[in-house]
């Protein structure tokens, strides 16, 4: 085990972090839309939201990645593995985030919205100024958890050939015959990334005036 190898694994960790950040942010945006759809009173929208959440939460990420990796070329979209991986991670996390957000929205105490109505706020104001901020506060810990989940789940992109942390560790393990060391260091990198996300999350919580969970 040399410093060189640790640095090589570090580049893998950077790739893993990048994949996670992109899929979490894009996933959040899609998640908000899906959440809105599943809370909608329009039946087809609601159904679409529910089925979307159920499917992408119900299928193992590995299977989802294989599906996207093999289906896209058949649709004439010859995309590199990284893009297939990003699409898979994003679809997966958007479904989880949509469900988390839905839980937050449903659990905002109705009295708080009634109080808004009684001081004369309109529906839009109640949604944007009362319901959404409270829902976000309720769901922030779960969203941080989701970021940690996707960080770990991103290790599966190694099967579609993306050079993330796990793939790098695999390659180095077979070339150096040091699998124990390589996977242990890779694990340490994942732990480190998770600790950073955890601290970032509680920092964000403090910024939003939340007490630690």
């Amino acid at each position, binding site marked *: 085990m040399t410093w060189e190898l640790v640095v090589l694994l570090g580049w893998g960790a950077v790739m893993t972090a990048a994949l996670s950040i992109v899929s979490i942010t894009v996933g959040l945006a899609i998640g908000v839309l899906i959440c809105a759809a599943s809370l909608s009173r329009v039946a087809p929208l609601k159904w679409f939201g529910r089925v979307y959440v*159920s499917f992408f939460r*119900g*299928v*193992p990420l590995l*299977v989802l990645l*294989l*599906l996207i990796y093999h289906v896209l070329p058949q649709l004439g979209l010859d995309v590199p593995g990284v893009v297939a991986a990003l699409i898979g991670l994003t679809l997966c996390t958007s479904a989880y985030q949509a469900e988390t957000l839905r839980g937050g929205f449903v659990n905002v105490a109705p009295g708080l919205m009634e109080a808004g109505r009684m001081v004369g706020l309109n529906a839009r104001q109640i949604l944007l100024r009362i319901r959404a901020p409270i829902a976000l506060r309720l769901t922030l810990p779960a969203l941080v958890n989701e970021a940690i989940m996707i960080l770990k789940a991103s290790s599966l992109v190694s099967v579609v050939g993306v050079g993330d942390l796990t793939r790098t560790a695999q390659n180095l393990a077979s070339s150096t015959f040091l699998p124990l060391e390589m*996977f242990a260091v890779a*694990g340490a990198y*994942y732990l480190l990334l998770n600790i950073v996300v955890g601290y970032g999350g509680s920092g964000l919580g403090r910024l939003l005036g939340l007490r630690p969970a």
Partner: protein
Amino acid sequence: MSDFSALREAMPEIVDGLWLTLAMWLAASALGLVLGLAIALARRFGPVWVDRPLWAVVGVIRGTPFLVQIFLLYYGGPFIGLELDPTPAGLGGLALYGAAYFSEILRGGLLAIPPGHVEAGMCIGLSRLQIVRRIMLPEMTLLVLPASVNMFVVLLKETAVLSIITVPELTMAVTGFGSANFAFSQAALVLAIVYWTLTELTGGLGRLLERRLDRFKLA
């Protein structure tokens, strides 16, 4: 699918894969639950020198990907004299992984029991063991049901990862058929539908159970 006879030929292997998936899922869930309960109880009632190392182990397992753990066990194991076939390695890894998560779920349940319920037991003279057995464990079970069902679903989905270390479970069997017949996307689609059905069934069963236990819940 291009060739129907090829599928018929591969069917026994796929069915075997499905059974192995179900067997490993249930076995790992049961083992994980029992081990997780032991960890939760040891951490809740044991001394600090038991709690601390368990805290660290659980944290490491929960903080790293299952795939890396399974690689470490399967490829790294032989270097420390732990040479395992794919299936036992997968089962052991999945059970340990489940135990770490279950221990946190169950510990949370133990901590969420209102202290007054325990005090009420002390006041009518129940012993500590009786309080744990008759009050804390049943109440914990009610509290952790939704999170546990979730975890069962997670474990079911993680069984697919075991195909990467060549455990001949469902994903391995179906993708094997897919690549032999150049039907990659069809194979992946079939897998997606089978897993989706299984996870929905599990979730539905969980919700049913939760409704049945609803009357035990205090507001």
